[in-house]
């Protein structure tokens, strides 16, 4: 309790000039774009009960990152990202194949892909480190992300990919809605259910891999899951939910960035997740209080 008071009195002494500093604006722009797009894409995958597909994709990237480094000996972002993306796609392909051709349930298949990809990646990195290959140690930190260190180019890439992802969702909204809510009806009505499914999975993979260096594996997963779930508390309409999830993602990002710009020694990525979680908690409390019976 006393430490909390001490902390708060520290806050009072803080100057707010960092709010409009160059780096703050860059990081805010990049994370806001990711937060918004992740909320929109995440809404569809959460409704499809695939909240953890993004998490699996994020962790599988490690195997690709390690392989890319092993093959090229280079550690620059484009090389590692290319490897990570290839691995994420391969992992999701395995996921889809497992689901279709084996008797593995969705959640189990996701868990298998996640852990095998991550374990394989760690084993590769540890193997290279043990052989004293320079630059191989700490490759797994790639999954942690450095939100506060985003550059203008990073932010530009994030904004571009986020925009493209949202546009794709808009184009396929009708199909995606149908598949998300009533898969068998959609299939019976002749909709390309599988194609829409794959597209959704690929969108999540793209979102996750692009957001990885900016935010890290766990944060990106959180942004794909928490804002949609928070938005779901307020509405039963998909259109409203998509917009709301996008807004919540964006607000979480901007608020988190602002807090981390003002308070010293607070890592930016985790603060964004905490803000999103707070919004989720408020959403649950408020909507329950408003209509306790409806929210069952």
């Amino acid at each position: 309790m006393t430490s909390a008071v001490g902390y708060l009195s520290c806050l009072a002494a803080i100057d707010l000039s960092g709010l409009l500093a160059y780096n703050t604006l860059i990081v805010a722009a990049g994370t806001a774009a990711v937060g918004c797009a992740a909320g929109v894409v995440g809404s569809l995958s959460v409704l499809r009960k695939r909240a953890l597909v993004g998490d699996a994709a994020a962790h599988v990237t490690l195997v690709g990152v390690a392989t890319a480094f092993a093959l090229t000996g280079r550690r620059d972002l484009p090389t590692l990202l290319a490897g990570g993306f290839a691995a994420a796609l391969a992992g999701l392909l395995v996921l889809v194949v497992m689901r279709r051709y084996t008797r593995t349930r969705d959640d189990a298949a996701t868990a298998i892909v996640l852990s095998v990809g991550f374990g394989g990646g760690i084993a590769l990195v540890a193997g290279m480190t043990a052989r004293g290959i320079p630059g191989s140690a700490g490759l797994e930190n790639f999954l942690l992300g450095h939100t506060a260190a985003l550059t203008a180019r990073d932010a530009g890439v994030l904004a571009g990919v986020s925009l493209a992802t949202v546009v794709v969702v808009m184009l396929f909204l009708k199909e995606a809605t149908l598949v998300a809510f009533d898969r068998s009806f959609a299939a019976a009505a002749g909709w390309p259910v599988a194609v829409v499914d794959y597209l959704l999975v690929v969108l999540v993979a793209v979102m996750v891999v692009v957001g990885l260096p900016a935010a890290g594996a766990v944060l990106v997963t959180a942004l794909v899951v928490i804002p949609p779930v928070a938005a779901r508390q307020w509405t039963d309409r998909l259109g409203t939910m998509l917009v709301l999830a996008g807004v919540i993602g964006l607000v979480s990002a901007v608020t988190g960035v602002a807090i981390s710009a003002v308070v010293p020694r607070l890592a930016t990525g985790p603060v964004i997740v905490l803000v999103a979680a707070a919004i989720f908690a408020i959403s649950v409390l408020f909507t329950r209080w408003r209509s306790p019976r409806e929210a069952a």
Partner: protein
Amino acid sequence: MLLMDQKMNFGPSKRAVQLSLVLGATVAALASHPGWAAEPRTGMPRVVVTTTIVADLVRQVAGDEVETDCLMGPGVDPHSFKATPRDADRLARADLVVASGLQLEGKLAALLERLGRRKRVVSVAESIPKDRLIEVGDGLYDPHVWFDPTLWAMCVEAVVEPLGQIVPAGRPRFEAAAAQYRGRLKLLDDALRERVAAIPERRRVLVTSHDAFRYFGRAYAIDVVGIQGMSTESEAGLNDINRLVDLVVSRGVPAVFVETSVADRNVTALREGALAKGHGVRLGGRLYSDALGGPQSGAETLEEALRANVDVVVGGLAGVAVRESDGGTGSGR
């Protein structure tokens, strides 16, 4: 469907036989791979050391009279190094284990402590009197002591006696070599101090991507600022980066420094922020931090690495251009 499954489950086990053959062959191939096999024994006492810096210390004292086996090669970050079973095996077969200590080998510390119950494990930095160390938390001290040659000279003594235990005949030679090495470290300290004097006082700010250089800064009156925390594992906050941008701009710091074994994203963000305020910051080149350079790097020993570091720092901060290109000198890679 059910029938098919039963057939799969109880049918001929040909597949199982094939599978086990393949598995067996794989295991055999792995075991015979040179990287996995045990190293040839030379008959000399084996000293297993953790970092290249400690390896250098042991070699300075014992020369070729012991076999020095280093767990972490050049360019490896000791904070995130995890031991493989093969490393544990190397440690188990060692006659003496020498570590840097003070939690430098974060993820290895528990293993070293267990090992210490069965054999001699020396943590050299822990022989330095506590009042000479920089405390960074409750009972936690900054482990990067080798950046102050006078502190490292105190560590020399810590290996002489244990080395004399495993090579009794070598003891007088080890003592002579240690005394001579301590003398060289003292001379090195004077030489480095003289070099640093060339930097204008206002610009004596060393910005790097992790706080390995506190002792270096204390010894030579340079303000050291790291973007990340003590270890390479923690993530920087936006506030820290913003304040650093302000510092670099207000003190006119011309260059910042990236280390050989730590990612440089934070530094890139810092330079971009400073440039937005109209202050260009060069990459001053790479400094050796937790690991020395590899063969032919010109920084295979601590003395060479410290000289190389000071050359890079002075070149970057004193205005004596090392190289105008953005890529730094890349001396570590």
